[in-house]
């Protein structure tokens, strides 16, 4: 029994459950699902620096900071007691290609051979964490939302700007994953 609980869920279990976050947040307090706003709230709370974009009452949005703190805790719980990524169903083609870049361990959520504390100062490690993270934070705010706010919440509510944004997320990801990430991994 515990073995079954520990295995990753198929998409048709986790997908609908993920989608239920939308009505759960609406019914709990009329809150639209969206994670990237938290990055803005953190800026507004910690370093507003007189930038008008960060001058608003972030405390009114503190529910979302509680939500994201919960996400971290939930991930910790699930990872510690309920999860086993060792028997992966990842595409063997991907794994073969990755091993040619020296990535053999895929039992964690990130490739630990290249994303770790000691690799931070190497060009590859820097791009994979600092540079990539910057793009995520800049891009999501510029796009006014991320995968949760646009792709799940926005599309669920039939918002066409969210469709535009989602298509751009995918287009940008396609381009970089296929043509740029292999070059970074070769560094």
């Amino acid at each position, binding site marked *: 029994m515990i073995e079954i609980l520990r295995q990753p869920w198929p998409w*048709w279990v*986790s997908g609908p*459950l*993920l*989608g*239920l*976050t*939308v*009505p759960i947040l*609406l019914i709990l*307090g009329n809150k639209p699902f969206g*994670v990237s706003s938290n*990055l803005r709230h953190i*800026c507004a709370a910690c370093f507003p*620096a007189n930038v008008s*974009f*960060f001058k608003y009452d972030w405390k009114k949005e503190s*529910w979302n900071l*509680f*939500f*994201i*703190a*919960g*996400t*971290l805790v*939930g*991930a*910790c719980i699930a*990872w510690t007691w309920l*999860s086993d*990524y060792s028997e*992966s169903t990842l595409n063997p083609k*991907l794994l073969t290609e990755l091993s040619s870049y020296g990535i053999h361990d895929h039992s964690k*959520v990130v490739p*630990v051979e290249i994303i770790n*504390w000691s690799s931070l100062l190497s060009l590859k490690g820097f791009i*994979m*964490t600092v*540079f*990539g*993270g*910057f*793009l*995520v*934070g*800049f*891009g*999501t*705010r510029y*796009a*006014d939302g*991320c995968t949760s706010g*646009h792709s799940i919440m926005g*599309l669920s*509510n039939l918002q066409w700007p969210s469709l535009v*944004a*989602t298509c*751009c997320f995918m287009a940008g*990801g396609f381009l*970089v994953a296929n043509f740029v990430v292999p070059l970074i991994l070769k560094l």
Partner: protein
Amino acid sequence: MNKIYPNIKFLLAGILFGIILIKGEVISWFRIQEMFRLQSFHMYGIIGSAILTGMISIQVIKKFRIRTIDKTEIIIPPKKFQKGNIYGGLLFGFGWAITGACPGPLFAQIGTGATVVIITLISAIGGTWMYGYIRDRLPH
């Protein structure tokens, strides 16, 4: 204290969300690479069925005028189009492919003990800050 208590329910919802992210492997850098390389249906299945579930839920909420647990009306603000949806969307796509994480999974990855992702998150906060700082000079 009265600030914390009403927010406990959102903390619990977040815990649920975090567990689902792990169990669905949505936070796996490897799954994101697979998705963008069209090597697996997994992520498409998850995002597609999540949207479908969200869509049906919102329709049900609207049709039956379901209210919140405090009995207030549920109103969802519309998304307004601006050019940033395109430019910002592309930039986020670039970052998503590199880090293998969108903002939610960044927090979840840290929860799995991948502590170096704290740096990725700090940098993402820096990116958001930079956007706020140069916002007036960007096309919208």
